[in-house]
């Protein structure tokens, strides 16, 4: 932090040097032109400013391209910015927009030569966004799009804002559901490494990005920006690959996918309204798991789906499968069986029997030392006993009623 004295000294120094031109003023007016030439790119000049357009084309795997072609025309969108906050002082200095063209992904990268050219960049970006049917981003909902909207607002381009496609597929939440648990994170880099098999080599880490643009502006070499352009291009390529992978998984590819969280996959299918497929994923996962806690989680979700679909028998059978080994999970499974019998099949006596089974299993688990912690057993015990008492009361009452009716 500056102290008042340092400040006064500095101010005095600034005052002394007053009159001499600022050292870091732009070196030459045609630096943008030089940059464009250096990058082998096109410089677009308009009355509102200049912007450098770098056009690149990336071949896509045949199956990926074919799958993506079935979707409404997408704009794969990613920005590089001068900071991580979405405040009004963070500027988009590089925006990439990719679209499918046959077997290839054609990417337009718009690079800002300097701050005053922002309006030109925004106009180009907005024009390309406007013709897309949907937007595909990674964390764009929280970051890229609000930032673009903020920039449009600062520059008064309100009409451009209205033309941004309504449909926005942010792949981050999907990736979180499918891979965060198995990969230990769901940054794009995690997914690239763990799922897409992408190894980044020539580009720079994200945290270096703003500094490189500032470095160029302060007179640094255009070379600083090459790695940033590569980084940004790879982001777009990965977006398309990722969307292809998601299509493959949805089309049944989940059967042979490594590192996939099946519960997440089932939820993903459910969001598509594909309840039967979701159940299949869960059954498949249940067959493959040995972890009782995970199995319980899978059963819970499956059973919810089955009950919602009016299939209490299948739901009950699913839980019955979980009661085989004497353990807390088995007791919990019996409790679920009881709940289904009571609520969905109106079978109070059956529910009582299931609860009694839960109680026996719990005793057994405790005796065999398989129960986990004493606290966990005690907690389950409480749940079981409470249900047992209530069901006994209700069953007795029902029998009295029946006896009265019979009399």
């Amino acid at each position, binding site marked *: 932090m500056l102290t008042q004295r340092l*400040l006064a000294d500095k101010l005095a120094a600034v005052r002394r040097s007053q009159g001499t031109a600022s050292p*870091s003023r732009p070196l030459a007016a045609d630096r943008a032109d030089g940059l464009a030439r250096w990058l082998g790119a096109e410089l677009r000049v308009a009355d509102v400013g200049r912007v450098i357009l770098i056009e690149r084309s990336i071949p896509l795997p045949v199956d990926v391209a074919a799958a993506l072609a079935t979707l409404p025309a997408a704009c794969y969108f990613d920005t590089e910015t001068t900071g991580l*906050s979405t405040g009004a002082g963070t500027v988009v200095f590089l925006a990439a927009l990719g679209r499918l063209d046959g077997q290839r992904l054609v990417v337009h990268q718009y690079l800002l030569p300097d*701050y005053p050219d922002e309006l030109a960049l925004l106009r180009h970006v907005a024009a390309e966004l406007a013709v897309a049917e949907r937007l595909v981003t990674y964390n764009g909902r929280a970051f890229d799009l609000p930032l673009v909207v903020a*920039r449009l*607002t600062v520059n008064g381009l309100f009409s451009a804002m209205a033309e941004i496609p309504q449909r926005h597929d942010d792949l981050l939440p999907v990736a979180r559901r499918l891979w965060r648990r198995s990969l230990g994170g769901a940054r794009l880099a995690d997914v690239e490494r763990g799922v897409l098999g992408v190894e980044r080599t020539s580009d720079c880490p994200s945290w270096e990005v703003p500094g490189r643009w500032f470095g160029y502006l302060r007179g640094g070499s255009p070379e600083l920006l090459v790695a940033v352009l590569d980084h940004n291009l790879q982001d777009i390529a990965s977006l398309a690959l990722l969307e292809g992978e998601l299509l493959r998984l949805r089309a049944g590819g989940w059967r042979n996918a490594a590192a996939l969280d099946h519960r997440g996959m089932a939820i993903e299918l459910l969001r598509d309204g594909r309840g039967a497929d979701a159940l299949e994923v869960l059954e498949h996962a249940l067959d493959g798991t040995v972890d009782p806690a995970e199995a319980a989680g899978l059963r819970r979700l499956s059973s919810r789906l089955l009950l919602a679909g009016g299939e209490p028998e299948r739901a009950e059978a699913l839980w019955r499968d979980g009661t085989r080994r004497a353990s807390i999970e088995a007791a919990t499974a019996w409790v679920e069986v009881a709940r289904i019998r009571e609520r969905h099949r109106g079978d109070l006596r059956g529910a009582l029997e299931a609860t009694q089974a839960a109680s026996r299993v719990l005793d057994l688990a405790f005796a065999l030392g398989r129960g986990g912690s004493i606290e966990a057993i005690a907690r389950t015990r409480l749940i079981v006993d409470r249900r047992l008492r209530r069901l006994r009361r209700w069953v007795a009452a029902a029998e009295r009623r029946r006896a009265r009716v019979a009399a």
Partner: protein
Amino acid sequence: MLTVPARDAEEAIARLVADPTIEAMVTAHRVLEPRPPRHAPWPENLDPRLRQALHDRGVEALYTHQAQAFAAASARRNAVVVTPTASGKTLCYNLPVLDAVARDDAARALYLFPTKALAADQLVELRALSDAAGIGLKTHTYDGDTPANVRSVVRSAGQVVITNPDMLHAAILPHHTKWFKLFENLQYVVIDELHTYRGLFGSHVANVIRRLRRICRHYGADPIFICASATIANPRELAERIIEAPVELIDDNGAPSGRKHILVVNPPVANGELGIRGSSVLTAQRLGEQLIRDGVQTILFARSRTAVEVLTSYLREAIPAPDGHPSTIRGYRGGYLPNQRHEIERGLREGRVRGVVATNALELGIDIGSLDAAISVGYPGTIASTWQQMGRAGRRSGTSISVLVCSSSPIDQFLAAHPEYLFDSSPEHGLINPDNLYVLLNHLRASSFELPVPATERFGLEETPLLLDMLQEDGYLRRADDDRYYWSHENFPASDFSLRTGAPENVVIVDTTGDRHRVLGEVDLFAAPLLVHEKAIYIHEGVQHHVDRLDWDERKAYVTRTDVDYYTDASLGITLKVLEVADETDAAPAGGRQRGEVMVAWKVTMFKKIKFHTHENVGWGSISIPEQEMHTTATWLIPPAELVNRYDRDTLDGALIGLGRVARTTAALLLMSDVRDLGVLAQVQAPFTGRPTLYLYDAVPGGVGLTERLFSLTDELVRACRDAVTSCPCSDGCPACVGPAIEVGARGKATVIELLAGMS
């Protein structure tokens, strides 16, 4: 029995005033006669729904000041309203704002309050009026307590956004694009409690307003500012410095008031030798006890949190609650949790709480209704706050009483001897220095993040271009071809600094008495070493807690409930280093005077255990808390060498302490500022000057210009000190002048007089 008929309160007050033992202590007694209301006709352009709503709530006509404020707003003139507590000040701004919204529901207003509590209060009041008028106002507070899902609604649809300067600084302005609907249509900015924006905080707020105005210009808005302030000497000047535009002063109060007794009470001399008077706390307790017993709803203002707790427990002991009932006497201070505070405020309004002991936290416009009696225990430091505290008592009709109980501190004794100062002299100035480089530069960075700065623009200073170049050199800004400076740094500048550098964060007090830890409250970082050092007795709502451990790095103090017969009092050690001399005069033969930049460091080193009631010292302990530093400005006096050479070191040491004490009090009076805004340090062999030196420094980081102004007043200062000491009737020094002989030495007072004579 919840409320007492006004007549009974009136009789109780009359009894108190007539009590001969109390009369003996009274050094001044004024009676303010009742004042009838003065009304103005309804403004013709006021929306009829509002007029009807007010009519339904029993408002037959506007008071003159309310009508004047409405007229100013209608004519697009900025205004500052200065009228006492409970004079209907909020209507002065709510009326024009609601009227604007009623006309055009795109209209927007921004309300700034210094605290979240006041904002919450205002929300309730504003909603009540708009609901009554059927306007359907969309309004909400926007601060740290606003739930995330409400925030986005407030941003886009809030017609009146109620917030605080800190939030405006850190959350709203830097994200102005999310608020463009507010800024595009901003018609009014309301700044209430303007007088709290003084000193360093005020300097920051003035810069936040500069930033606000830049954003408004960008979106094509030109809002009217309506400010409200408690009585200070220069409300208009302060408002004009903060908003940097002409402001109309509205101070002609049309609200009625009942009869009011104002008493200045000086406890009798308890120890003639030491010049010590009876305790102001005990005297206030006695007055409060008598009033509360007689059913007079009373507020007592104590100067420290400890004093609040001590007084609360004394009063509770004296007036025990009936079995099974909660006590009707409550403490109220910073550090209580919001729910507890709301409950006490409600209790006061509804009359369940009959007595409250508060710090100045209740000085601000928190709605507790009006009480019958207010007792200030010790001069609160400024005339403005004295009137604020006294204003808490006083109904629109019926009699009320306000009492200032003087402590033995010099300024209190000065007031006891010269009460006319309180009644007749103007209250303090609200001084700010928005161009304090330290403050301004931070805001210039924040502002350039918000919008690029054209090289021709001025942000406060004429030298703005130089500052911009400097920020460019430091790598924060880039001057591009279009001659505008753009923020070009990864950081988010508004999060780099706080408007209240005085209290960057709080220390949380954790009660570990029960099975589960429980947060008791908080104290700010500056007060923490004094209040929650290890082994301190921390009193919260009258319950004593022993501080077992203070985790300074984690900002947590762990306490357990305890019951002992003492409280603790920590003492502060201060060192000072001169960094740079900015100006000096050698008024030989009167000695040297200099001013400049200093680094003040303070450390709490030890504490005393003081027994309740007898106030004797029953032990002590040491404290190890890291030293804290502050960079500020100072003025210092160096008595002439041939004068100081006459004395031995001990005599001089004592005399300098005495001189410091009288100089600080007198300087505060000359500058019309709070004594606490000035620090004093006497060094018998100052490292910087190599001679005995008396330093007076601005007690806020960066300084707000107090000692800079003092430097030009040093002749007056020395003369006034001399008058004060020579006219004091004591023989060897007393707390009212240089301090008791036991502290300044047997020849202390005489030496101070000689020093002052030599320095004039």
